[in-house]
Protein backbone atom coordinates (compact mmCIF):
# COMPACT_ATOMS: atom_id res chain seq x y z
CA UNK A 1 0.00 0.00 0.00
CA UNK A 2 2.81 2.35 0.94
CA UNK A 3 4.56 1.66 -2.35
CA UNK A 4 1.36 2.50 -4.20
CA UNK A 5 1.16 5.81 -2.30
CA UNK A 6 4.75 6.70 -3.20
CA UNK A 7 4.09 5.94 -6.87
CA UNK A 8 0.83 7.93 -7.18
CA UNK A 9 2.31 10.86 -5.26
CA UNK A 10 5.41 10.97 -7.47
CA UNK A 11 3.53 10.59 -10.78
CA UNK A 12 0.46 12.77 -10.27
CA UNK A 13 0.40 14.82 -7.08
CA UNK A 14 3.98 16.03 -6.70
CA UNK A 15 4.76 15.79 -10.39
CA UNK A 16 8.44 16.41 -10.96
CA UNK A 17 7.93 19.10 -13.61
CA UNK A 18 4.67 20.78 -12.74
CA UNK A 19 4.95 20.90 -8.99
CA UNK A 20 8.64 20.42 -8.14
CA UNK A 21 10.09 22.36 -11.08
CA UNK A 22 12.87 19.92 -11.87
CA UNK A 23 13.96 19.29 -15.45
CA UNK A 24 12.31 22.41 -16.89
CA UNK A 25 15.04 23.13 -19.47
CA UNK A 26 14.56 19.93 -21.53
CA UNK A 27 10.81 20.14 -20.81
CA UNK A 28 10.66 23.44 -22.73
CA UNK A 29 13.48 22.66 -25.16
CA UNK A 30 12.69 19.15 -26.42
CA UNK A 31 8.90 19.26 -26.46
CA UNK A 32 8.22 20.75 -29.88
CA UNK A 33 7.56 17.31 -31.44
CA UNK A 34 5.93 14.25 -29.85
CA UNK A 35 8.58 11.88 -31.18
CA UNK A 36 11.46 13.77 -29.57
CA UNK A 37 9.46 14.17 -26.35
CA UNK A 38 9.00 10.39 -26.24
CA UNK A 39 12.72 9.83 -26.80
CA UNK A 40 13.65 12.30 -24.07
CA UNK A 41 11.14 10.79 -21.64
CA UNK A 42 12.43 7.24 -22.18
CA UNK A 43 16.06 8.35 -21.88
CA UNK A 44 15.23 10.12 -18.60
CA UNK A 45 13.56 6.98 -17.19
CA UNK A 46 16.61 4.92 -18.10
CA UNK A 47 19.16 7.33 -16.63
CA UNK A 48 17.25 8.16 -13.44
CA UNK A 49 16.66 4.50 -12.55
CA UNK A 50 20.29 3.46 -13.14
CA UNK A 51 21.83 6.54 -11.51
CA UNK A 52 19.55 6.28 -8.46
CA UNK A 53 20.54 2.67 -7.86
CA UNK A 54 24.26 3.49 -8.20
CA UNK A 55 24.22 6.67 -6.07
CA UNK A 56 22.08 4.97 -3.41
CA UNK A 57 24.61 2.14 -3.24
CA UNK A 58 27.55 4.54 -3.07
CA UNK A 59 25.97 6.58 -0.30
CA UNK A 60 25.05 3.65 1.93
CA UNK A 61 27.97 1.31 1.18
CA UNK A 62 30.88 3.77 0.82
CA UNK A 63 30.11 7.24 2.16
CA UNK A 64 28.22 6.22 5.31
CA UNK A 65 30.75 3.62 6.58
CA UNK A 66 33.57 6.13 5.98
CA UNK A 67 31.47 8.94 7.57
CA UNK A 68 32.09 11.33 4.70
CA UNK A 69 28.43 12.02 3.82
CA UNK A 70 29.30 15.65 3.08
CA UNK A 71 30.99 14.42 -0.11
CA UNK A 72 27.58 13.35 -1.47
CA UNK A 73 27.09 16.20 -3.94
CA UNK A 74 30.55 15.94 -5.51
CA UNK A 75 30.44 12.13 -5.76
CA UNK A 76 26.91 12.04 -7.15
CA UNK A 77 27.48 14.55 -9.93
CA UNK A 78 30.69 12.84 -11.05
CA UNK A 79 28.98 9.44 -10.94
CA UNK A 80 26.02 10.73 -12.95
CA UNK A 81 28.24 12.36 -15.58
CA UNK A 82 30.37 9.22 -15.90
CA UNK A 83 27.32 6.97 -15.94
CA UNK A 84 25.67 8.90 -18.75
CA UNK A 85 28.87 8.66 -20.81
CA UNK A 86 29.13 4.94 -20.04
CA UNK A 87 25.50 4.23 -20.90
CA UNK A 88 25.98 6.10 -24.14
CA UNK A 89 29.04 4.01 -25.11
CA UNK A 90 27.47 0.66 -24.16
CA UNK A 91 24.30 1.52 -26.00
CA UNK A 92 26.23 2.53 -29.11
CA UNK A 93 28.05 -0.81 -29.13
CA UNK A 94 25.29 -3.26 -28.20
CA UNK A 95 21.95 -1.58 -28.89
CA UNK A 96 22.54 0.58 -31.95
CA UNK A 97 18.83 0.97 -32.75
CA UNK A 98 18.02 2.25 -29.25
CA UNK A 99 21.11 4.48 -29.42
CA UNK A 100 19.85 5.99 -32.64
CA UNK A 101 16.52 6.77 -31.00
CA UNK A 102 17.86 8.14 -27.69
CA UNK A 103 21.44 9.06 -28.57
CA UNK A 104 21.16 12.81 -28.94
CA UNK A 105 19.19 13.18 -25.70
CA UNK A 106 21.65 11.33 -23.47
CA UNK A 107 24.37 14.02 -23.16
CA UNK A 108 21.68 16.59 -22.37
CA UNK A 109 20.56 14.56 -19.39
CA UNK A 110 23.73 15.13 -17.34
CA UNK A 111 22.62 18.69 -16.72
CA UNK A 112 18.98 17.72 -16.19
CA UNK A 113 18.42 18.64 -12.56
CA UNK A 114 15.81 15.89 -12.22
CA UNK A 115 18.55 13.23 -12.15
CA UNK A 116 20.60 14.81 -9.36
CA UNK A 117 17.36 15.88 -7.66
CA UNK A 118 16.03 12.32 -7.41
CA UNK A 119 19.44 11.02 -6.24
CA UNK A 120 19.49 13.63 -3.43
CA UNK A 121 15.84 13.11 -2.50
CA UNK A 122 16.33 9.35 -2.11
CA UNK A 123 18.86 10.16 0.61
CA UNK A 124 16.89 13.05 2.13
CA UNK A 125 13.70 10.99 2.59
CA UNK A 126 15.64 8.04 4.12
CA UNK A 127 14.12 5.55 1.69
CA UNK A 128 14.79 1.83 1.93
CA UNK A 129 16.04 0.10 -1.24
CA UNK A 130 12.51 -0.97 -2.28
CA UNK A 131 10.99 2.46 -1.71
CA UNK A 132 13.92 4.09 -3.52
CA UNK A 133 13.36 1.81 -6.52
CA UNK A 134 9.63 2.60 -6.70
CA UNK A 135 10.28 6.33 -6.29
CA UNK A 136 12.98 6.47 -8.95
CA UNK A 137 10.77 4.63 -11.44
CA UNK A 138 7.63 6.69 -10.71
CA UNK A 139 9.28 10.11 -10.93
CA UNK A 140 10.51 9.76 -14.53
CA UNK A 141 7.23 8.05 -15.50
CA UNK A 142 5.52 11.25 -14.34
CA UNK A 143 8.06 13.19 -16.40
CA UNK A 144 7.28 11.11 -19.51
CA UNK A 145 3.53 11.57 -18.99
CA UNK A 146 3.76 15.36 -18.69
CA UNK A 147 6.26 15.92 -21.50
CA UNK A 148 4.12 13.78 -23.88
CA UNK A 149 0.94 15.71 -23.01
CA UNK A 150 2.80 19.01 -23.32
CA UNK A 151 4.29 18.17 -26.72
CA UNK A 152 0.87 17.13 -28.03
CA UNK A 153 -0.51 20.54 -26.99
CA UNK A 154 2.46 22.36 -28.53
CA UNK A 155 1.99 20.56 -31.86
CA UNK A 156 -1.59 21.88 -31.97
CA UNK A 157 -0.36 25.30 -30.87
CA UNK A 158 1.79 25.63 -34.00
CA UNK A 159 -1.33 26.10 -36.11
CA UNK A 160 -3.16 28.28 -33.57
CA UNK A 161 -3.42 32.07 -34.06
CA UNK A 162 -1.22 33.16 -31.14
CA UNK A 163 -0.51 36.91 -30.72
CA UNK A 164 2.99 37.81 -31.93
CA UNK A 165 4.33 38.72 -28.50
CA UNK A 166 3.29 35.36 -27.06
CA UNK A 167 4.88 33.21 -29.78
CA UNK A 168 7.53 30.73 -28.68
CA UNK A 169 8.43 30.29 -25.04
CA UNK A 170 5.86 32.73 -23.61
CA UNK A 171 2.82 30.72 -24.70
CA UNK A 172 4.61 27.47 -23.80
CA UNK A 173 5.08 28.73 -20.23
CA UNK A 174 1.42 29.72 -20.00
CA UNK A 175 0.34 26.30 -21.30
CA UNK A 176 2.59 24.71 -18.68
CA UNK A 177 0.95 26.93 -16.07
CA UNK A 178 -2.53 25.79 -17.08
CA UNK A 179 -1.36 22.15 -17.03
CA UNK A 180 0.03 22.68 -13.53
CA UNK A 181 -3.34 24.13 -12.54
CA UNK A 182 -5.07 21.01 -13.86
CA UNK A 183 -2.60 18.75 -12.08
CA UNK A 184 -3.10 20.58 -8.80
CA UNK A 185 -6.57 19.01 -8.88
CA UNK A 186 -4.89 15.70 -7.96
CA UNK A 187 -3.90 17.10 -4.55
CA UNK A 188 -5.60 15.12 -1.82
CA UNK A 189 -5.95 12.02 -4.00
CA UNK A 190 -3.95 9.89 -1.58
Amino acid at each position, binding site marked *: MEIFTIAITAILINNIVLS*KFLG*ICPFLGVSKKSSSALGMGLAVIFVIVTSSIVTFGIYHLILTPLEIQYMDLITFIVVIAALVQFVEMVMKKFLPSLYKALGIYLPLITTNCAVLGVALENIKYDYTFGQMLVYSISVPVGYLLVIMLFSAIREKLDSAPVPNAFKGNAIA*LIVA*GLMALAFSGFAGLV
Partner: protein
Amino acid sequence: MKKAQIFLAGLFKENPVLVMFLGMCPTLAVSTNLDNAIGMGIAVIIVLLLSNIVISLIKKLVPNEIRIPIYIVVIATFVKIIDLLMHAFTPDLYASLGIFIPLIVVNCIILGRAEAFASKNSVWDSILDALGMGLGFTLALLLISGIRQFIGTGALFISNPFNPTQIFFSTGNLLGQYVFGIFQTPPGAFLVLGFIVAALNAFRLNREKKKVLTQDKK
Protein backbone atom coordinates in the same frame (compact mmCIF):
# COMPACT_ATOMS: atom_id res chain seq x y z
CA MET B 1 35.06 44.06 -25.79
CA LYS B 2 34.81 46.95 -23.33
CA LYS B 3 34.68 46.17 -19.61
CA ALA B 4 31.34 47.88 -19.07
CA GLN B 5 29.81 45.96 -21.96
CA ILE B 6 30.82 42.61 -20.44
CA PHE B 7 29.17 43.57 -17.17
CA LEU B 8 25.98 45.00 -18.67
CA ALA B 9 25.44 42.15 -21.15
CA GLY B 10 24.43 39.80 -18.33
CA LEU B 11 22.12 42.34 -16.77
CA PHE B 12 19.93 43.15 -19.75
CA LYS B 13 20.81 42.13 -23.29
CA GLU B 14 21.78 38.53 -22.47
CA ASN B 15 19.83 38.22 -19.23
CA PRO B 16 20.27 34.54 -18.37
CA VAL B 17 16.67 33.95 -17.27
CA LEU B 18 14.44 36.25 -19.30
CA VAL B 19 16.35 36.19 -22.60
CA MET B 20 18.41 33.00 -22.67
CA PHE B 21 16.07 30.76 -20.60
CA LEU B 22 18.87 29.28 -18.49
CA GLY B 23 18.45 28.22 -14.89
CA MET B 24 14.68 27.93 -15.14
CA CYS B 25 14.23 25.35 -12.39
CA PRO B 26 15.39 27.47 -9.42
CA THR B 27 13.80 30.57 -10.96
CA LEU B 28 10.35 29.04 -11.01
CA ALA B 29 10.67 27.08 -7.80
CA VAL B 30 12.02 29.57 -5.27
CA SER B 31 10.36 32.75 -6.56
CA THR B 32 7.52 32.79 -4.02
CA ASN B 33 8.89 35.70 -1.95
CA LEU B 34 11.64 38.32 -1.99
CA ASP B 35 13.65 36.67 0.81
CA ASN B 36 14.04 33.48 -1.21
CA ALA B 37 14.93 35.47 -4.33
CA ILE B 38 17.69 37.41 -2.55
CA GLY B 39 19.06 34.29 -0.84
CA MET B 40 19.13 32.26 -4.06
CA GLY B 41 20.55 35.20 -6.03
CA ILE B 42 23.43 35.74 -3.60
CA ALA B 43 24.22 32.01 -3.46
CA VAL B 44 24.36 31.88 -7.27
CA ILE B 45 26.49 35.07 -7.50
CA ILE B 46 29.06 33.66 -5.04
CA VAL B 47 29.28 30.26 -6.73
CA LEU B 48 29.44 31.82 -10.20
CA LEU B 49 32.13 34.30 -9.14
CA LEU B 50 34.35 31.69 -7.47
CA SER B 51 33.93 29.11 -10.23
CA ASN B 52 34.58 31.69 -12.97
CA ILE B 53 37.79 32.83 -11.21
CA VAL B 54 39.12 29.31 -10.70
CA ILE B 55 38.20 28.11 -14.17
CA SER B 56 39.78 31.09 -15.88
CA LEU B 57 42.95 30.58 -13.77
CA ILE B 58 43.26 26.89 -14.71
CA LYS B 59 42.16 27.25 -18.33
CA LYS B 60 45.67 26.50 -19.69
CA LEU B 61 46.08 23.36 -17.52
CA VAL B 62 42.80 21.69 -18.42
CA PRO B 63 42.91 19.17 -21.28
CA ASN B 64 40.15 19.90 -23.76
CA GLU B 65 38.62 16.39 -23.75
CA ILE B 66 37.83 16.24 -20.03
CA ARG B 67 37.06 19.89 -19.40
CA ILE B 68 33.37 19.44 -18.57
CA PRO B 69 33.92 16.91 -15.71
CA ILE B 70 36.65 19.18 -14.32
CA TYR B 71 34.36 22.21 -14.42
CA ILE B 72 31.58 20.24 -12.74
CA VAL B 73 33.86 19.14 -9.90
CA VAL B 74 35.08 22.73 -9.36
CA ILE B 75 31.49 23.99 -9.30
CA ALA B 76 30.27 21.15 -7.03
CA THR B 77 33.00 21.95 -4.51
CA PHE B 78 31.94 25.58 -4.22
CA VAL B 79 28.25 24.66 -4.08
CA LYS B 80 28.88 22.26 -1.21
CA ILE B 81 30.76 25.02 0.67
CA ILE B 82 27.82 27.42 0.22
CA ASP B 83 25.40 24.63 1.14
CA LEU B 84 27.18 23.93 4.45
CA LEU B 85 27.56 27.65 5.26
CA MET B 86 23.88 28.36 4.62
CA HIS B 87 22.86 25.33 6.66
CA ALA B 88 24.87 26.70 9.57
CA PHE B 89 24.13 30.44 9.44
CA THR B 90 20.76 30.88 7.68
CA PRO B 91 18.77 27.76 8.69
CA ASP B 92 15.33 29.20 7.79
CA LEU B 93 16.41 30.27 4.33
CA TYR B 94 18.13 26.90 3.90
CA ALA B 95 14.88 25.11 4.76
CA SER B 96 12.77 27.17 2.35
CA LEU B 97 15.21 26.88 -0.58
CA GLY B 98 15.56 23.16 0.16
CA ILE B 99 16.93 20.95 -2.59
CA PHE B 100 17.58 23.91 -4.89
CA ILE B 101 20.79 24.86 -3.06
CA PRO B 102 22.61 21.61 -3.93
CA LEU B 103 21.01 21.77 -7.37
CA ILE B 104 22.96 24.97 -8.14
CA VAL B 105 25.56 22.44 -9.39
CA VAL B 106 23.43 21.63 -12.42
CA ASN B 107 22.24 25.21 -12.94
CA CYS B 108 22.93 25.77 -16.63
CA ILE B 109 23.96 29.41 -16.00
CA ILE B 110 27.08 28.42 -14.08
CA LEU B 111 28.33 25.65 -16.37
CA GLY B 112 27.30 27.74 -19.36
CA ARG B 113 29.41 30.74 -18.28
CA ALA B 114 32.35 28.47 -17.43
CA GLU B 115 32.23 26.91 -20.87
CA ALA B 116 31.33 30.00 -22.91
CA PHE B 117 33.25 32.74 -21.09
CA ALA B 118 35.65 31.88 -18.24
CA SER B 119 37.49 29.19 -20.22
CA LYS B 120 38.40 31.71 -22.92
CA ASN B 121 38.91 35.04 -21.12
CA SER B 122 41.15 36.65 -18.51
CA VAL B 123 40.43 36.47 -14.78
CA TRP B 124 39.37 40.11 -14.55
CA ASP B 125 36.90 39.81 -17.43
CA SER B 126 35.53 36.59 -15.95
CA ILE B 127 34.90 38.34 -12.63
CA LEU B 128 32.93 41.08 -14.42
CA ASP B 129 31.01 38.48 -16.43
CA ALA B 130 30.15 36.52 -13.27
CA LEU B 131 28.93 39.66 -11.48
CA GLY B 132 26.84 40.77 -14.48
CA MET B 133 25.26 37.37 -15.07
CA GLY B 134 24.71 36.77 -11.34
CA LEU B 135 23.05 40.16 -10.88
CA GLY B 136 20.96 39.60 -14.01
CA PHE B 137 19.74 36.30 -12.52
CA THR B 138 19.00 38.02 -9.19
CA LEU B 139 17.11 40.88 -10.87
CA ALA B 140 14.94 38.47 -12.85
CA LEU B 141 14.24 36.48 -9.68
CA LEU B 142 13.35 39.67 -7.76
CA LEU B 143 10.96 40.75 -10.53
CA ILE B 144 9.17 37.39 -10.65
CA SER B 145 9.03 36.91 -6.90
CA GLY B 146 7.97 40.50 -6.30
CA ILE B 147 4.96 40.05 -8.58
CA ARG B 148 4.11 36.65 -7.11
CA GLN B 149 4.44 37.81 -3.52
CA PHE B 150 2.45 41.00 -4.06
CA ILE B 151 -0.51 39.42 -5.89
CA GLY B 152 -0.37 36.24 -3.85
CA THR B 153 -0.18 37.69 -0.34
CA GLY B 154 -0.81 41.44 -0.79
CA ALA B 155 2.39 42.48 0.97
CA LEU B 156 6.07 42.87 0.12
CA PHE B 157 8.65 42.37 2.82
CA ILE B 158 12.34 41.66 3.22
CA SER B 159 13.73 40.16 6.43
CA ASN B 160 17.24 39.59 7.75
CA PRO B 161 18.36 36.14 6.52
CA PHE B 162 20.51 35.62 9.63
CA ASN B 163 17.65 36.46 11.96
CA PRO B 164 14.18 36.11 10.35
CA THR B 165 12.38 37.90 13.19
CA GLN B 166 14.12 41.16 12.21
CA ILE B 167 12.26 42.73 9.30
CA PHE B 168 14.09 45.31 7.17
CA PHE B 169 11.21 46.47 5.03
CA SER B 170 7.52 45.72 4.89
CA THR B 171 4.59 47.30 3.07
CA GLY B 172 1.88 45.58 5.09
CA ASN B 173 -1.08 44.01 3.31
CA LEU B 174 -2.07 46.49 0.59
CA LEU B 175 -4.63 44.33 -1.21
CA GLY B 176 -6.72 43.39 1.81
CA GLN B 177 -8.85 40.35 1.02
CA TYR B 178 -8.37 40.69 -2.75
CA VAL B 179 -5.34 38.41 -3.03
CA PHE B 180 -4.92 35.51 -5.45
CA GLY B 181 -3.38 32.63 -3.52
CA ILE B 182 -2.79 30.84 -6.83
CA PHE B 183 0.23 33.07 -7.50
CA GLN B 184 2.02 31.51 -4.54
CA THR B 185 1.52 28.01 -5.98
CA PRO B 186 3.41 26.33 -8.87
CA PRO B 187 0.90 27.29 -11.65
CA GLY B 188 1.38 30.95 -10.69
CA ALA B 189 5.12 30.70 -11.32
CA PHE B 190 4.61 29.50 -14.90
CA LEU B 191 1.93 32.10 -15.61
CA VAL B 192 3.90 35.07 -14.22
CA LEU B 193 7.07 34.12 -16.13
CA GLY B 194 5.03 33.53 -19.30
CA PHE B 195 3.48 37.02 -19.11
CA ILE B 196 6.84 38.70 -18.32
CA VAL B 197 8.43 37.03 -21.35
CA ALA B 198 5.48 38.08 -23.51
CA ALA B 199 5.74 41.69 -22.27
CA LEU B 200 9.46 41.76 -23.12
CA ASN B 201 8.69 40.33 -26.58
CA ALA B 202 6.04 42.98 -27.16
CA PHE B 203 8.51 45.70 -26.12
CA ARG B 204 11.17 44.32 -28.50
CA LEU B 205 8.75 43.93 -31.44
CA ASN B 206 7.53 47.48 -30.91
CA ARG B 207 11.07 48.87 -30.91
CA GLU B 208 12.00 46.93 -34.06
CA LYS B 209 8.90 48.27 -35.81
CA LYS B 210 9.86 51.84 -34.88
CA LYS B 211 13.41 51.26 -36.14
CA VAL B 212 12.08 50.05 -39.51
CA LEU B 213 9.79 53.09 -39.76
CA THR B 214 12.60 55.59 -39.06
CA GLN B 215 14.81 53.81 -41.59
CA ASP B 216 12.08 54.08 -44.21
CA LYS B 217 11.85 57.84 -43.67
CA LYS B 218 15.57 58.25 -44.32
